[in-house]
């Protein structure tokens, strides 16, 4: 039965969710992203890999316009989600970020209660009409973050009191609370121990049933384990993009092979 589900989910990934064309990013004089074209598939996990400074995080941050917050950063080209240009003048970046959630390297819960951490997004976007509504959103989000059972009896204790792995799952719960379509994860496990990492990876696998997930990771094995598509960035260019299985067993580009087999870094 599990196998059948896996097959069904793979078939689901034929539709493109995010489409980027000729994307260029400059930080002042530095040309950080060079003419990247990529189609990210709906309800799948796409991993961005590459050595430090290759532009993978920069490109990830373009997808929810996080780079807008950096003065010297200039983004050119088109990035569309469901065919809609997210850099269009009519798009409100704050609304966009409710649709495109983000999880960072280090867990960063607000210095508030577990409940308020999750309720924050729905509150500012006006997604709950009543207290009961909000309770429901909080519970659903914490369940999707695979942390409900661990925190349901202490929802009003501070989020910062949780362990690192629990804090990261709380952050994922917070990110899904606004019911986004896309989840961006920038090295979500690099500050976690192997057990917490395995829990997050398991969670990522369930998240792709509902969301389009894009993950930046330095762990090649993690990319191989959690993603269906892998994109390899090198010196600001997208060198190779394809099925994860293919990239890790038989890459087409010699630079990809050198990187994933530990010959260039």
């Amino acid at each position: 039965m599990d196998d059948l589900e896996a097959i069904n989910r793979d078939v689901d990934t034929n539709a493109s969710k995010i489409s980027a064309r000729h994307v260029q990013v400059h930080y002042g004089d530095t040309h950080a992203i060079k003419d990247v074209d990529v189609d990210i598939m709906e309800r799948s996990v796409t991993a961005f890999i590459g050595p430090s400074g290759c532009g993978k995080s920069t490109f990830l941050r373009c997808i929810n316009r996080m780079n807008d917050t950096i003065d010297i950063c200039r983004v050119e080209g088109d990035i569309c989600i469901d065919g809609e240009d997210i850099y269009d003048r009519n798009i409100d970046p704050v609304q966009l970020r409710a649709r495109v959630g983000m999880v960072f390297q280090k867990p960063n819960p607000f210095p508030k209660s577990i409940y308020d951490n999750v309720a924050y997004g729905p509150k500012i976007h006006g997604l709950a009409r009543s207290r009961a509504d909000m309770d429901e959103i909080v519970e659903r989000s914490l369940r999707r973050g695979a942390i409900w059972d661990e925190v349901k009896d202490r929802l009003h204790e501070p989020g910062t009191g949780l362990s690192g792995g629990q804090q990261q799952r709380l952050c994922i719960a917070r990110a899904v609370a606004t019911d986004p379509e896309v989840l961006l994860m920038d090295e979500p496990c690099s500050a976690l121990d192997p057990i917490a990492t395995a829990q997050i990876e398991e969670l990522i696998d369930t998240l792709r049933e509902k969301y389009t997930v894009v993950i930046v990771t330095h762990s090649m094995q993690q990319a191989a384990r959690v993603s269906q598509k892998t994109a390899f960035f090198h010196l600001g260019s997208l060198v190779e993009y394809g099925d994860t299985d293919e990239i890790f067993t038989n890459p087409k580009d010699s630079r990809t092979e050198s990187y994933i087999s530990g010959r260039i870094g």
Partner: protein
Amino acid sequence: MTTKHISGAFDRDLEHAQAILMKMAGLVDEAMLRAAEALETNNLEMADAVRRNDKAIDELDESIKIDCARILATRSPNAGDLRTVLTVMSIATNLERCGDYAKNIAKRTSVLAHAHPVKDASPALRRMQKAVVDMMTDALNAFTRRDLEIAQEVRARDREIDEMYNTLFRSLLTHMMEEPHSITACMHLHFIAKNIERMGDHITSIAEQVIYLVSGDLPDDDRPKGDLTSFSNPDASGGTA
């Protein structure tokens, strides 16, 4: 991929596993040659040595499997490195089986030494044995040189071995019908021929592993097969087909 890994120990691990594989290949090659020679010259001492030396081959096979398991666990190899480890493991298994067949030939040699000699079987077996030994040399060359062309050529050559086996099978069958007192010897010679034919299959598998190692794809088209003895019936008119 000829460039070195950032981790030099990774390079050493991979090189070590391949060096052991080559050492094992040397022993198997020698076992095949000596089993053939012992059979041809009725040299029971040599046959005995082949039987004893199989243990060393088995030990190397085990050592390769342990090395490869360690590389998989500690290095998590990808791409060409992953294919190298998988190929080394697979080739070691093929070599180990070839060693077993050589050992079996040597065992039968001891029995044949006391049996009634069978006319014409010896030159045909010698030709077959030479053909598989050559195939083995070329398959291992294809592996060390990562040569797709040689590997493909070796793979195609298995058909010749199969055809030699068919011919020998037919002539042994005829012989047994004509001279029932030679049945024991003929049966042993037939098993020897079958062992050599099976070596050919394992060498073909080595060649296919090399194709996978170099190209990333296992050959999927059906290779030419020539062993048709499973369909043969001596009672039917026209004998074997």
